[in-house]
């Protein structure tokens, strides 16, 4: 089977459409960055307290909000996380409730506020929010099975069993201590009932970032992106020629701007993993561009008489099948990641989904036309004088082409 056999599309002839397309998306993104949503930063970059809570039933967001108000927490952002059926809520306190002097104050306040919603269980501990060590110590003290010498290891196993059951079978929330019947011996269940109750929620994930780390990570993310682009520029300069490096880096920069712009337009947060995705995209888009560039270089040697624009067109067409296939397959994998990879990776995979489309587009529509535009511009400006003065054997063939173009 074969798609795209012997295509002969005049890509360069459509450069004004490409330019318009790129401009629309970049400008829309930039407008959103500067005048609308800004760059929505993830908690790692802006600092703050995020608590992800999973409830046993579909939670009433108003009730959650009231509980936060009663606890005196300022402007919490409360929103559903993931599909409604997941019963998950994200509570975001922002930096004003997060200080480095008492980093987890906000988190503790949230948990307390949620626990006091059903305060009929005074003096008991919350089974849903207790870890193995707590259970183990409690059981060791109560010793419901009257175990002898290896009580510690036995109760450890039982505590782990309880946790595993709660986390793997029940998605983290038990609706009552009696759920454990059949999982652990009845004596243990009875002993647990004396000291534990089950709240209707479990804390799934907590992220607390103080202002100092936030600033540091912001700086690092920007530096990493710039270093990455610079590294590529140097490598391409070394492997090809300066203008190829510049073309590829401009294309990557274009991809980065559009991807970040998309996140801004959609008001999705840029987290640390999204930055990782963007850096990967830089590598990927570079990949795509290099494949085309490699073919251009090869064809310049073969087809000395043809104008550069034709060579570029031909090269893009020759590699088109590969470009579409690879991008299509990679797109398939990241789409699978986006659809099935879960909520934690949603931002990451979204960046990849957008970026792979844009990255593929940019290597055809931005990087390659830039080469031709540059040669045209140089030919107009300096005429034949420069062409003659450049005498390195590697450049000679291309210079001839340039003059003609």
């Amino acid at each position, binding site marked *: 089977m074969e798609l795209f056999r012997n295509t002969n599309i005049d890509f360069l002839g459509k450069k004004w459409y490409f330019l318009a397309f790129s401009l629309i998306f970049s400008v829309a993104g930039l407008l959103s960055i500067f005048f609308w949503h800004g760059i929505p930063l993830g908690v790692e970059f802006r600092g703050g307290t995020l608590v992800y809570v999973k409830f046993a039933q579909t939670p009433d967001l108003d009730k959650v909000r009231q509980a936060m108000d009663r606890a005196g927490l300022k402007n919490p952002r409360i929103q559903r996380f993931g599909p409604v059926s997941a019963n998950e809520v994200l509570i975001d306190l922002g930096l004003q409730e997060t200080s480095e002097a008492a*980093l987890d104050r906000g988190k*503790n306040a949230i948990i307390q506020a949620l626990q006091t919603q059903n305060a009929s269980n005074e003096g008991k501990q919350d089974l849903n929010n207790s*870890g193995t060590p707590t259970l183990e110590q409690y059981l060791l003290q109560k010793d419901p099975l009257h175990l002898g010498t290896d009580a510690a290891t036995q109760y450890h196993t039982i505590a782990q069993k309880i946790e595993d059951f709660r986390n793997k079978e029940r998605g983290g929330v038990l609706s009552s201590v009696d759920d454990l019947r059949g999982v652990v011996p009845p004596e243990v269940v009875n002993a647990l009932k004396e000291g534990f109750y089950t709240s209707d929620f479990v804390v799934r994930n907590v992220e607390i970032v103080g202002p100092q*780390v936030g600033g540091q990570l912001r700086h690092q993310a920007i530096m990493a992106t710039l270093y990455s682009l610079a590294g590529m520029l140097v490598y391409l300069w070394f*492997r090809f020629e300066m203008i190829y490096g510049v073309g590829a880096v401009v294309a990557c920069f274009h991809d980065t701007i559009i991807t970040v712009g998309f996140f801004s337009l959609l008001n999705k947060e840029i987290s640390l993993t999204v930055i990782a995705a963007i850096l990967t995209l830089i*590598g990927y888009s*570079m990949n795509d561009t290099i494949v085309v560039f490699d073919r251009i270089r090869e064809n310049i040697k073969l087809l000395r008489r043809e104008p550069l624009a034709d060579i570029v067109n031909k090269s893009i067409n020759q590699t088109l099948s590969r470009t579409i296939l*690879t991008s299509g397959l990679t797109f398939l*994998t*990241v789409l699978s990641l986006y659809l099935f990879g879960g909520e934690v990776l949603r931002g990451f995979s979204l960046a990849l989904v957008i970026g792979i489309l844009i990255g593929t587009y940019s290597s055809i529509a931005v990087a390659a036309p830039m080469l031709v535009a540059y040669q045209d511009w140089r030919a107009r400006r300096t005429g034949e004088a420069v062409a003659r003065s450049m005498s390195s054997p590697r450049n000679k063939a291309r210079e001839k082409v340039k003059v003609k173009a």
Partner: protein
Amino acid sequence: MNKNLLAKTILIIAVLIAFLFGIFGIPGSLSGKGLLAALQSRIHLGLDLKGGTHLILQVQVNDAINADTDRAVERLKDALKSGNIAFGEISKPDPQNHPELIQIKGVPPESSSELRRIVSEKLPDYDLGSGAESSWTVTMKPSVANDTKKKAVQQAIETIRNRIDQLGVSEPVIQEHGLGDYQILVQLPGVDDPARVKEIMQSTAMLEIRQAVNGPYPSEQAAMQANGGVLPPDTVLMKGSALHPQSGEENTEVYWLISRSSAVSGGDLRTADSGHDENGRPDVNFTLTGDGGRRFAAFTGSHVGDKLAVVLDNRVKSVATIQEQIHDQGRITGSFSPQETQDLALTLRSGALPAGIKYLQEVTVGPSLGSDSIRQGVRAAIIGMIAVMVFMLFYYRAAGINADLGLFLNLVILLGFLGFTGATLTLPGIAGVILTVGMGVDSNVLIFERIREELRHGKTPPSAVDQGFAHAWVTIVDTHVTTIVSAIILFLFGTGPVRGFAVTLSFGLAANLFTSVFVSRVIFESILNRHQRGEALSI
């Protein structure tokens, strides 16, 4: 099959077996369960997959500098006194921002050469300079200050590691973090409520035994009044708690007049254990080292009948009268819960922190989220991989099998790498695996498309394969280098999950060079070997 091809095939099978060993080790049984258990013991999961706590904390290194300059101030005062040099005041003008700076006021000009001599003799780590209004400054040398800060971080790491080890957290990570900001990264797998661990890590646990000169007083004013408004030389007023004389209630604030110097301190401890006193109240018993014991014996021998205070983090914990000379044992009583005495004994055993610490970041992943993430990540990976494999078969027919074999081997090598090196697999790391599948197949596509092109130009299958590989090779190297450059930068800048992503991505790409170029070529050659001359290649 010719000899060369046979050797290559054997090499490939050897690699396959080696990396399968990397993934599974030698499994207990070959059943699905046995293999899964073997896999779990070989592949280290990151915190985001198995649940746990990730903390970044900062050592307040100025504390360590302040401690050093405090001692220097004392030494300076003693030296000037014994050298009969008059001085007005020796103080630290700005301990918060300039802990390294000491100011001496009121030294008469005729004593300046004497002062110079004393500073260079007694304080070799300090520079003497002249300050404003005929005062002098004594500054810690920058190199010494730097050393002190670095040492404080190292010692903090050691102390924290000791404490966490004793808590029984398995496979903790405690290491310096970031670039020169005195930060420490602590990862505690399986700890989903970090409150107690944080408490224990943070407690400086500075233990001292000092003489209790007088007290207790119910308030600060009462203490000052009792001493005529001026504290006796070389004493300080310290807070402590005591049983209320009337109500018998615990935790009443009282003040003690405590000597400035300590008889023994935390560094002199050999062991510390929690226990109970004769009334059944929780306490901490400790024994001293040989040297500490000798000093303690000398001190208690000469102070029989005086009072002794156990001071923890600048707070009086308990006071007792010295009945007789004590050699190397002691006890800390007070209003403790059993848990508190256990934690106190633990922190005392592990040594004091050289400086306070501040928490900068705390991420806790609950175990239920971790197992959900594994399930979803693996599911996405399998679906993505199957989709790619099916497409390759469909599009390239027999050559698709070649690519799929390569893809499979790529995955084995990647996981084997993780098993061999002990690198951690994180959730973004799983995404890296998926991405490697997508990008790995790129090399195959490049080669296959090139071979098809060469075939279209009328080349024979063997020369088309030859040319295809030769032309695509240059491009493949370029594309791999650029992606690995971005992965390395990610590794250098990222932490935790992001690092895991960089690791799987670079391992995967390196493995891909082997599978899509070398392995794929061997498969093509063995097919061509069996081909009749002129028979078409299925691609």
